């Protein structure tokens, strides 16, 4: 049974890591489309002139990637095996705020901006 357990462990670990690696490589090489990731579109403007650089997307991108890596480091350094490490109470508020800024910018560009 220990051999089977070990086999399954490695199987899942390799699958997850290779999948994450493939997605990361495809994003970095442009095979996964990332055009316009940091740009919004203003609905009221005509095509070709509607795209604008969006700082609210930049902050959400940094926050999402930062929060992801931070949580992985918490899991790797978890002193209490078998449990998910808890995160500071302020994090949901921060992530909520970051998402609210992004959504606010998107809604403004879609409905109000000229």
């Amino acid at each position, binding site marked *: *049974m220990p051999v*089977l*357990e070990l*086999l*399954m*462990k490695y*199987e*899942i670990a*390799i*699958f*997850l890591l*290779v*999948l*994450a690696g*493939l*997605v990361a490589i*495809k994003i970095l*090489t*442009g*095979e*996964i*489309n*990332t*055009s*316009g*990731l*940091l*740009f919004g*579109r203003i*609905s009221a403007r005509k095509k070709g002139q509607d795209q604008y650089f969006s700082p609210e997307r930049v902050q*959400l*991108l940094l926050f*999402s*990637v930062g929060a*992801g890596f931070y*949580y*992985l480091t918490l*899991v*790797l350094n*978890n002193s209490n*095996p*078998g*449990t*998910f*490490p*808890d*995160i*500071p*109470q302020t*994090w*949901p508020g921060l*992530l*909520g705020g970051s*998402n609210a800024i*992004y*959504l606010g910018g*998107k*809604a403004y560009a*879609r*409905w109000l901006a000229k």
Partner: protein
Amino acid sequence: METLTLLAGYLVCGLVGILGVFILWKIADGSIDLSRLISEPNGDASLSRFQFLVFTFVIALSLFLVIVSVKPATFPNIPGTVLSLLGISGSSYLISKGIQFSDPAGVADRSTDIVISPATAIVRYGQSQQFKAEVPRKPGSTVKWQVIAGIGTVSAMGLYTAPAASPAGTTQPQHATIQVTSDEFPDASDLAVVTLA
């Protein structure tokens, strides 16, 4: 009984492994197309989809690490704060889609146009001019370059090279028309006109 359980375990492990390798192989060779994994229907990449992707990988890797850190492996409790983070990300995604779908332009697929730049150029004899082509629907996709009228040559990378000298006996300005065609969308093409000086 124990032998049978073990045998079934190995069988399931083998099948899951084969399925996993098959999926990864198909993703790697492009048969499973992930090019629009984080794209909106109109072709723009979506940050809320990207955030969802990052969090999904983080939670999947974390779940795996947490489960294998104890023996026997057990499914752990997920803290409320982690669930609330995922809830915020999911809600943000849904609201973002609501905003996106409130306008037909946010849903309509982007055309399969190809745009060449510059559209016109003046090139001296013996000199070169680099042209670029953009396929908004699928950035980075391969294109084909050719000179369809006039003189000069164009490389596979879009570098137009004029002949060393004007053809003998010509007094009028010479022109060349360069065509770029998308390999992905063969019906999409654009032209640039070169005036030789």
